[in-house]
């Protein structure tokens, strides 16, 4: 994908947030113990995580990074990064500690994480950079008081156009007078990733940008009608949806496709794996895993649903949605409790351990002991029995 192919390799190659990049770079250069931590705030996709990775690489500093929304408790933060904050290497070399998505530490699930960070930034021997998406959250404001805050914003349209022109030139794409390109820039709303994907989708399907911007319904129908994996892949890449929206919409369309039970189960299995990829990306910020998402859907989902589904605009029936929400909530809660019990992450518990636990719950004694160990109330009994029966 072009977003990966043209990912900036140096801080200078990034686009937008010029003053912010300089401020962060100078902050690290002048950092010494006692200096404030740095807090980067701004919407997703504005380059906060990319910048920190490149900053560590270019300054030759090793980096200890952690997605804070994955580790919320004080004890687990201490275990994962406490040492890294307090120690330097044998030769006095420092590590850059990066806590991404600190918004995830906040709110009702906060088990002392914010206090841990506030204390840590005062005592650390290593520079700490934090990143948050929601600058207006009260807790972020409190955190900001003990940090140097730098705001990240989407790049202005002219810079987005410059970046797209550079890619188009490298790919041999003709952009002519630039009206179509300007249309992409405006539609992208400053989201470089989206803009590059829009540019590439034009390139994938050939001809002009206007002709290759089908509606979502056309794109989904093309996916269901695709004769082979390559056509299914091309159809997916014309969809102007975020990956999460794409998976969600395909889930709805598959459910409403009227497939026989065995095929429906197989199709949902693929959608579920796509959802796991999204979850993994959310937890690790490894956006390059996105390259596998469309491939998975085109190679494994398209053959199952070929010629048997179409775009459905309406949402799922409310009772079904309610059931899905309730089950998802139960899975989330169960994962969190099991994770705390087994000293693993909620994401690992959900993807790796829960399927086995559910299978073992076919045994009533095991189920009861699990309920006791995780302090589950009676509402879980029915849920576990249902899951065990699958």
């Amino acid at each position: 994908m072009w977003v990966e192919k043209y990912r900036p390799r140096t801080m200078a190659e990034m686009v937008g947030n010029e003053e912010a990049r300089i401020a962060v770079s100078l902050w690290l250069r002048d950092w010494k113990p006692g200096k404030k931590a740095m807090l980067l705030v701004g919407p997703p996709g504005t380059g906060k995580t990319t910048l920190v990775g490149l900053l560590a690489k270019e300054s030759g500093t090793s980096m200890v990074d952690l997605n804070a929304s994955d580790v919320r408790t004080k004890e687990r933060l201490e275990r994962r990064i406490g040492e890294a904050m307090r120690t330097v290497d044998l030769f006095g070399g420092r590590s850059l500690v990066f806590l991404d998505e600190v918004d995830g530490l906040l709110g009702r699930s906060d088990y002392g994480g914010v206090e841990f960070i506030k204390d840590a930034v005062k005592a650390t021997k290593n520079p700490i950079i934090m990143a948050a998406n929601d600058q207006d959250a009260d807790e972020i404001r409190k955190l900001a008081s003990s940090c140097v805050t730098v705001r990240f914003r989407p790049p202005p349209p002219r810079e987005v156009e410059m970046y797209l022109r550079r890619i188009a030139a490298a790919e041999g794409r003709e952009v002519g007078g630039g009206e179509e390109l300007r249309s992409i820039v405006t539609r992208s709303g400053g989201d470089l990733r989206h803009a590059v994907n829009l540019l590439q989708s034009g390139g994938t399907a050939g001809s002009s940008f206007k002709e290759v911007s089908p509606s979502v319904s056309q794109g989904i129908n093309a996916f269901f009608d695709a004769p082979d994996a390559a056509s299914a892949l091309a159809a997916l890449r014309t969809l102007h949806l975020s990956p999460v929206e794409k998976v969600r919409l395909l889930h709805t369309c598959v459910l409403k496709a009227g497939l026989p039970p065995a095929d429906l189960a197989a199709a949902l299995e693929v959608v579920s794996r796509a959802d796991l990829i999204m979850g993994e990306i959310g937890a690790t910020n490894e956006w390059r895993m996105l390259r596998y998402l469309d491939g998975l859907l085109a190679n494994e989902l398209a053959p199952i649903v070929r010629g048997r589904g179409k775009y459905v605009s309406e949402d799922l029936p409310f009772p079904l949605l309610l059931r899905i929400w309730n089950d998802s909530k139960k899975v989330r809660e169960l994962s969190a409790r099991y994770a705390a019990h087994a000293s693993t992450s909620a994401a690992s518990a959900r993807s790796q351990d829960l399927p086995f636990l559910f299978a073992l719950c076919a045994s009533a004694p095991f189920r009861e002991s699990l309920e006791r160990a995780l302090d589950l109330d009676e509402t879980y009994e029915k849920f576990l029995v249902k899951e065990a029966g699958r």
Partner: protein
Amino acid sequence: MKKVLVGGWFTLPRLSREDFSLLMRQGVKYDREMGFRIEPETDLESAVRTIRSAVGEEVSLVLRCFVCGRDACDGCPYLETCDRTKVSSMCLCGEHSPETDAYPLYVKAASESLAG
């Protein structure tokens, strides 16, 4: 219309104590000699609101060209659609517009700035 160059010094008529402290809280820098300046950490939307109410006229933010430092908004084809309170603070002027293959110049300017 009050034009404010983002990242450049600008002056304002004498402000009330409340408006002044509000601007400071919103991250606007003040220097007795030079005046006011929008910084990377400035809460732009709020600061523009404060300035607008203080001077009693509309405020138009003007971005600077990252390559040469000139007014980047003059003649920009995106002027109508670009919300300058929401985008990052530097851009490209007509001379260094995307049509002129500005990316190598842009990267060079960034390298120099980052090298300090």
